[in-house]
């Protein structure tokens, strides 16, 4: 009868023990205790495994200290428990062979049957893998940061030096123009040189835009999307009128965001000029712009009915510098490259959907 009434309790205890040992095994968590009164030390099998302690090794309270990289710190921790305290922390331990590793360990007072504190007990597990991985990542991040700094510096030097040469070339041609005899054969060469100089200067101008994106001070402020969009449209007013383009903007779902105003302006300008450049010759250009909030993400969708992009062939080139996405070979320049960099430098993203001869849709995730 007695046994029977104890059945549920026995089952419960068995379950508890089972779950505890499973957890310990899965997480490789060892248990230990040390009795100051008797000087005895105990460590379970998992703990022995972690420390690689031989089966016959006799652990006592003193030899236990040798498993800590910082012995003094271990003594302090144990004393704090004897005085009624407790600890949970990451600490450097040493296995039986002296290999140091990071462990997460806990300690609490050990009581005797009369509730007096007689020692310490707790659990510990190796977190060496995670700590090392964390350190490695940190070191890599540092390395990447340093490399990035060097690249920015390099880009500056290059752009600075190139600018000096380009500007001297311009000046030289300027001076040459004053003294040359017009109508001579040298005219052709003068014109070639002038064109080269202009191209060089404009390429440099583009490069400098790219270089400055990430070092420019990014002053984020509240901006009205529709206001900026209308400002940008004004810059294309005559062009849009001439090609009979129709532009519709709907900013009701999201009218104000925190952004760098100059970046937002550039986003609109690049997208509008891109639509004009790659408009269909068969029908007048239609642009539809709207803002949305989807899963808390703030979006801007910019659609046109232009010639579209063959996503199979050109998807990789859309945001690259100086790549042509036009069948006629007309250069796309760096507009979309700068746009993507600006959006990404503020933690956003740009996506494109397009079908050849159907139009293109850019989605900016702010």
């Amino acid at each position, binding site marked *: 009868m007695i046994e029977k009434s104890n059945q549920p309790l026995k089952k419960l205890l068995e379950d508890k023990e089972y779950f505890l040992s499973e957890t310990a095994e899965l997480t490789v968590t060892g248990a230990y205790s040390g009795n100051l009164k008797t000087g005895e030390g105990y460590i379970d099998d998992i703990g022995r495994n972690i420390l690689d302690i031989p089966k016959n090794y006799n652990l006592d309270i003193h030899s236990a200290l040798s498993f800590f990289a910082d012995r003094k710190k271990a003594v302090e921790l144990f004393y704090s428990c004897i005085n009624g305290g407790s600890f949970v922390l990451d600490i450097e331990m040493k296995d039986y062979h002296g290999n140091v590793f990071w462990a997460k360990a806990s300690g609490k007072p050990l009581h005797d049957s009369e509730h007096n504190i007689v020692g310490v007990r707790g659990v510990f597990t190796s977190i060496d893998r995670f700590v090392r991985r964390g350190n490695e990542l940190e070191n890599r991040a540092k390395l990447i940061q340093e490399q990035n700094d060097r690249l920015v510096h390099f880009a*500056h030097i290059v752009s600075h030096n190139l*600018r000096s040469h380009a*500007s001297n070339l311009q*000046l030289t041609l300027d*001076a040459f123009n004053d003294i040359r005899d017009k109508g001579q054969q040298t005219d052709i060469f003068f014109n070639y040189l002038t064109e080269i100089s202009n191209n060089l*200067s404009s390429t440099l101008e583009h490069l400098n835009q790219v270089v400055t994106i990430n*070092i420019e001070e990014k002053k984020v402020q509240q901006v009205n999307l529709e206001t900026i969009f209308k400002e940008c449209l004004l810059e294309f007013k005559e062009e849009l009128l001439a090609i009979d383009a129709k532009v519709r903007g709907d900013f009701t779902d999201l009218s104000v965001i925190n952004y760098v105003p100059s970046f937002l302006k550039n986003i609109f300008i690049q997208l509008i000029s891109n639509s004009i450049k790659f408009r269909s010759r068969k029908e007048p250009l239609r642009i539809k712009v709207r803002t949305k909030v989807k899963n808390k993400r703030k979006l801007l969708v910019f659609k046109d009915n232009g010639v579209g992009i063959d996503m199979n062939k050109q998807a990789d080139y859309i945001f690259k510098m100086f790549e042509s996405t036009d069948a006629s070979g007309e250069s796309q320049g760096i507009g979309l490259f700068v746009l993507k960099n600006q959006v990404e430098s503020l933690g956003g993203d740009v996506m494109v959907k397009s079908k050849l001869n159907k139009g293109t849709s850019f989605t900016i995730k702010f």
Partner: protein
Amino acid sequence: MSVLKKACIIDDDRLYVSLMSMIVDKYDLVDELVLFENGDQALKFFELVLKDKIEAPQVVLLDLNMPIMNGWELLDVLEDHTAALQEKGIHLLVVSSSINQNEIAKAKKHALVSDFITKPLSKTHLLEIFNKISS
């Protein structure tokens, strides 16, 4: 008669300096053009100017990136004499190929600097500057 009496260019880029001299000569912009390759050379000149031993230039075109003593270092030394130099009618313009916005803002804020010009400094721009200062 020239537009200005005396001007000074501090720049280590010899080609640029030659071109500037050419333009200055051609349009008869100054009577006397003084050239320095770095801040250190220019500093000695300014010390004499401050002691009234040499006539002060009306305009100084200062480059930033130079060996030995760069434009920033020269500006730092001259900063203490800002009032004295301005009293002598010196207009100091920084002319650099830098497009670093922080550098441009820093230069413009400097008490001694009246303007920042990004290279290339065109002939037209140079004429404008000299005419403005002379008027």
